[in-house]
């Protein structure tokens, strides 16, 4: 079931296929009645003073609307991004220039960008249809992942089932895979990936891991023992709205997509929205910030869904939240330098996990508590998990250490997943052997 390792080049489409693709795209575009953004630009403006800021605000209030703000005028020195339709470009630029408003062109032609992306995606989708298998060494869209989930559950229905634990802000279903060999309310292990949408390697690793579990059950003694006694839950796309946005508009989007009246910026950092040290250091009360914690703990549906599920279940023994990048394995606390009560045990376990990971491809991770290894961060998943009684709470930061960062090449998906699996397995085995 695994894709070819290392991804990489495939032979190009034949002339017939290329023409078919073009025709297909035109039909698709027409059928979907998609908007045309040809010639539209996104301008970035930085207001120098309050007067300029209010001038921008005036633009927003114009009827009929002449510009579409992607990032509205909020505060001085916060950039304002606006999409300007081609027909309004001349007027708007003249307006900006006459009022001394400096602007830069962020996107020269939106349609070109959209076309290129659509072309690339259609290409990869077509390839997958023709090879008749899901490629574990590629990045996928939300639709592709959800479709894979349905197929996966169907093919392995003896062990795997799908649970919807809630809905995202934009009303997307939030799905969890349950791996179980039966029994009622077995002690359980939680794994989530994709809480920050731009961390694409995490979703990809989660998918590979899910497949690894079903492949190795009955073959790997350790995994078999784990699954015979415990259940594993994997939430692959913890932030579906953000993830969709990274495909459609902004590859580097981190937060969810929640909107609140009167607030110009969108989204809450889902890893600052938990009820543990909420609002403390290492989170931000500015809605435009990447680490905005939201108005209150668990205010975000994506977080509330998990809290409700885990709390109602009542028997989770380990929680692992997967991020990228930095190559780190960490345990609580993030909110303070205070060590947790079983700090020594977690240190030793992290050490073992990281060594197991290293043995696969020689990749080095550092480890320790979150606050001392990465930074102080409040309202995070693992702190909440620990405070809720889950003794084995870990946070991963996967590859790499900054060379590609969030844009990790797809060729590294499988090696990353392979090494991460060994660390996960180590943690799960320890959890199994240390019931509480």
């Amino acid at each position, binding site marked *: 079931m695994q894709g070819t390792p290392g991804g990489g080049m495939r032979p190009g489409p034949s002339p017939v296929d290329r023409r078919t693709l073009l025709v297909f795209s035109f039909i698709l575009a027409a059928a979907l009645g998609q908007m045309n953004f040809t010639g539209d630009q996104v301008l970035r403006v930085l207001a120098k003073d309050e007067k300029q800021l209010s001038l921008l605000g005036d633009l927003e209030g114009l009827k009929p609307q002449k510009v579409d703000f992607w990032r509205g005028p909020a505060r001085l*020195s916060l950039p304002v991004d606006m999409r300007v339709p081609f027909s309004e470009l001349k007027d708007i630029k003249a307006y900006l220039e006459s009022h001394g408003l400096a602007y830069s062109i962020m996107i020269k032609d939106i349609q070109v960008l959209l076309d290129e992306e659509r072309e690339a995606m259609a290409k990869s989708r077509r390839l997958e249809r023709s090879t008749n298998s899901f490629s574990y060494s590629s990045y996928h869209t939300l639709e592709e992942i959800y479709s894979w989930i349905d197929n996966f559950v169907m093919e392995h229905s003896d062990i795997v089932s799908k649970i919807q634990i809630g809905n995202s802000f934009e009303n997307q279903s939030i799905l969890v895979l349950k791996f179980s060999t039966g029994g009622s309310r077995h002690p359980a292990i939680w794994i989530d990936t994709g809480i920050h949408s731009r961390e694409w390697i995490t979703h990809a690793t989660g998918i590979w891991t899910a497949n690894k579990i079903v492949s190795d059950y009955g073959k790997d003694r350790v995994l078999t023992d784990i699954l015979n006694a415990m259940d594993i839950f994997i939430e692959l796309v913890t932030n579906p709205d953000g993830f969709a946005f990274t495909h459609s508009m902004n590859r580097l989007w981190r937060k969810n997509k929640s909107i609140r009246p009167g607030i110009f910026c969108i989204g809450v950092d889902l890893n600052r929205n938990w009820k543990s040290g909420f609002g403390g250091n290492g989170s931000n009360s500015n809605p435009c910030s*990447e680490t905005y914690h939201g108005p209150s703990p668990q205010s975000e549906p994506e977080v509330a869904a998990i809290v409700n599920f885990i709390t109602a279940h009542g028997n989770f023994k380990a929680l692992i939240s997967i991020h990228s990048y930095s190559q780190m394995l960490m345990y609580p606390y993030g909110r303070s330098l205070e060590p947790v009560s079983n700090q020594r045990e977690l240190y030793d376990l992290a050490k073992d996990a990281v060594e197991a990971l290293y043995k696969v491809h020689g990749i080095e991770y550092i480890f320790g508590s979150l606050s001392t290894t990465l930074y102080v961060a409040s309202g995070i998943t693992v702190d909440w998990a620990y405070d809720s009684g889950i003794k084995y709470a870990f946070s991963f930061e996967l590859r790499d250490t900054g060379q590609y960062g969030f844009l990790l090449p797809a060729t590294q998906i499988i090696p990353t997943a392979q090494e991460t699996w060994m660390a996960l397995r180590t943690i799960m085995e320890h959890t199994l052997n240390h019931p509480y």
Partner: protein
Amino acid sequence: SASYRVPAPAPVFLPWGPMAAPQALASSPPHTKTNSFFIFRVQLKYSVSVFQINPKEGCKVHVVFSTERYNPEEREGRLGKCSARVFFKNQKPRPTINVTCTRLIEKKKRQQEDYLLYKQMKQLKNPLEIVSIPDNHGHIDPSLRPIWDLAFLGSSYVMWEMTTQVSHYYLAQLTSVRQWKTNDDTIDFDYTVLLHELSTQEIIPCRIHLVWYPGKPLKVKYHCQELQTPEEASGTEEGSAVVPTELSNF
């Protein structure tokens, strides 16, 4: 072993302190003493000793590390072992860095590499129709690699200038490139990059203007838009690269 070692007992803990030093090193342009384009990257394997923490003065960090070629396709093994002193004065950016390295590539090879890159850049067809490097799937077309290398170099100046004990930058993506014709055969580039700052997780767009000729110092002008923190004063980071730190033994 897979962890970096800080001599025990750890002093008054600065979660960022020791990490910032290798980061600053990774960004700093250490080849500039010889005006060579040769890029190396700091390996993760290093040992760090923090030997002076005085909140009033700043923080001095001693880092020992090994280096390897930046271009992963050309693995020639470890270039050498280096030792560096990094001094963050009063939490300010642009730490001073003193680096000493052993066993490096000889000067002639470096010059050859520089001229190779120069030729590649000059041969590029203009106007460059580039949207993103790497693309959203992390892929860099081999033909675009020289552009990326140059952008990375320019960005490293900018990042070094902005790095403090608490601010660490990485180059996330190159979003536009424009090459200008010149009368004097220099390489003249305008590009926009997205920098990722680790402690705030912010994505910072920067416009960078870079002029280069092999053997001559790199000239970098930049304009970054930064998210304002409540404590700081006004927002944008702007600057041109001044002659950077002195090096010995490179």
